[in-house]
């Protein structure tokens, strides 16, 4: 293996390297989420075709496979590292305290920070269902088709509306989105700290903004299913 390769591997094996990875992948996933959120919110656009148009545009990009592969890698790395951090933590203290509590400020320990692995794993399960339901769900062949600019494209909007008629979807999704909010409540701030971008003055600001962003993302995602369920 090349010198650089070895060096990189060493980084990934070190505890700081692991944090750099969770940070980079976590932030990349947040960027992806923001893109996804934007796409979702097009549902509410005054142009009824905006949603499907955008979806079509995305899957017709030349680089779509590269992007998807990249995204998949980020997910996989994020998950592997997240789980390994969790496993190391278990090993580092097999017998817990009879009594333990946070000392309070300036600790950032919270329900959110303590449950990263739980919210993460739920997100993972959710992702699988989500991808099966939508990405690999019924498409043009199954009749989910709409014509835009004279071209038949997949009618994802209808699929969405049908799926979210179902209460399990309509309420399951928002529930998971709340958990996503929890994941990001600690996650966003934490990623900056992991990347070494923090100092005592910046920390409180980023921590607060991270919380706000987490709420916005969670709310942004959960309105769509609820809206569809209640409005139709």
């Amino acid at each position, binding site marked *: 293996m090349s010198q650089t390769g070895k060096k990189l591997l060493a980084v990934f094996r070190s505890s700081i390297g692991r944090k750099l990875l969770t940070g980079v992948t976590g932030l990349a996933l947040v960027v992806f989420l923001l893109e996804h959120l934007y796409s979702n919110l097009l549902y509410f656009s005054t142009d009824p075709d905006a949603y499907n148009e955008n979806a079509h545009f995305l899957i017709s990009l030349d680089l779509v496979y590269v992007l998807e592969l990249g995204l998949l890698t980020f997910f996989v790395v994020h998950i592997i590292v997240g789980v390994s951090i969790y496993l190391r933590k278990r090993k*580092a*203290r097999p017998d817990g*305290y009879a*009594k333990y509590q946070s000392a309070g400020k300036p*600790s950032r320990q919270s329900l959110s*920070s303590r449950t990263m692995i739980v919210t993460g794993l739920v997100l993972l399960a959710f992702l699988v269902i989500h991808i099966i339901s939508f990405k690999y769900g019924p498409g043009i062949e199954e009749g989910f088709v709409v014509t835009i600019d004279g071209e038949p494209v997949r009618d994802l909007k209808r699929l969405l509306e049908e799926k979210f008629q179902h209460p399990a979807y309509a309420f399951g999704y928002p529930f998971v989105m709340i958990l996503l909010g929890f994941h990001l409540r600690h996650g966003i701030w934490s990623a900056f*700290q992991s990347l070494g971008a923090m100092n005592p003055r910046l920390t409180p600001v980023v921590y607060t903004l991270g919380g706000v962003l987490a709420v916005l993302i969670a709310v942004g995602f959960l309105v769509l299913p609820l809206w569809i369920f209640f409005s139709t």
Partner: protein
Amino acid sequence: MTVHLRIWRQAGPDSPGRLAEYTVEDVNEHMSFLELLDVLNEKLITEGEEPIEFDNDCREGICGSCGLMVGGVAHGPQPRTAICQLHMRHFNDGDTIVVEPWRATAFPIIKDLVVDRSAFDRIMAAGGYVSVKTGGAPDANALPVTKEDADLAMDYASCIGCGACVAACPNSSASLFTASKIAHLAMLPQGTPERRRRVLNMVDQMEAEGFGDCSNHAECEAVCPKGISISAIALMRREYVRAVLSS
């Protein structure tokens, strides 16, 4: 006042441990928490029982010997205070206080509340120094250091090595301890020549000792008797990236 104590007793590294219950009456509010344990120990000795072992030495919050989980918090409820400096006026009559040792794989229990923290010494030996032989140092004023940097270096250097950061960390990470030394020396020109080797070696050693990774809970900063900021950890990560990129 009267306090009830539930204290971890463990005869040796491999023996099973348990929380034993004790009650101490006539506790004076000016007593320190360790003096409360002294009083209890005197009583135990007189009754023919083995006293409770706990590490302590300076009893003024600087040597870092003492370290107990008191009421579920490392060094007890008062911020920026080692347990030897915590006085009983911070408790109430009738309180039940749980007292446990630091718990971490890298800090094996020796007896009762005493743990082995030698992992910290090994992390320091891996690079927590400036290699300078005795004699031959240039005049102390040869290298000016801005007051801001010197003050910041002092903030980081004030670590007492007690291990509360590890004990309180949900992951048992030694990041704050390791980072504070790296940050201290990185702030000063004297520490610059070795900064790359230092961060790589110390981080490796920290890993090898079996501490957990840091998940940025920042619990360490909250329990640190010197209030060392987790910015040290951010700085350590920057140093690390720089070291890897440039080596």
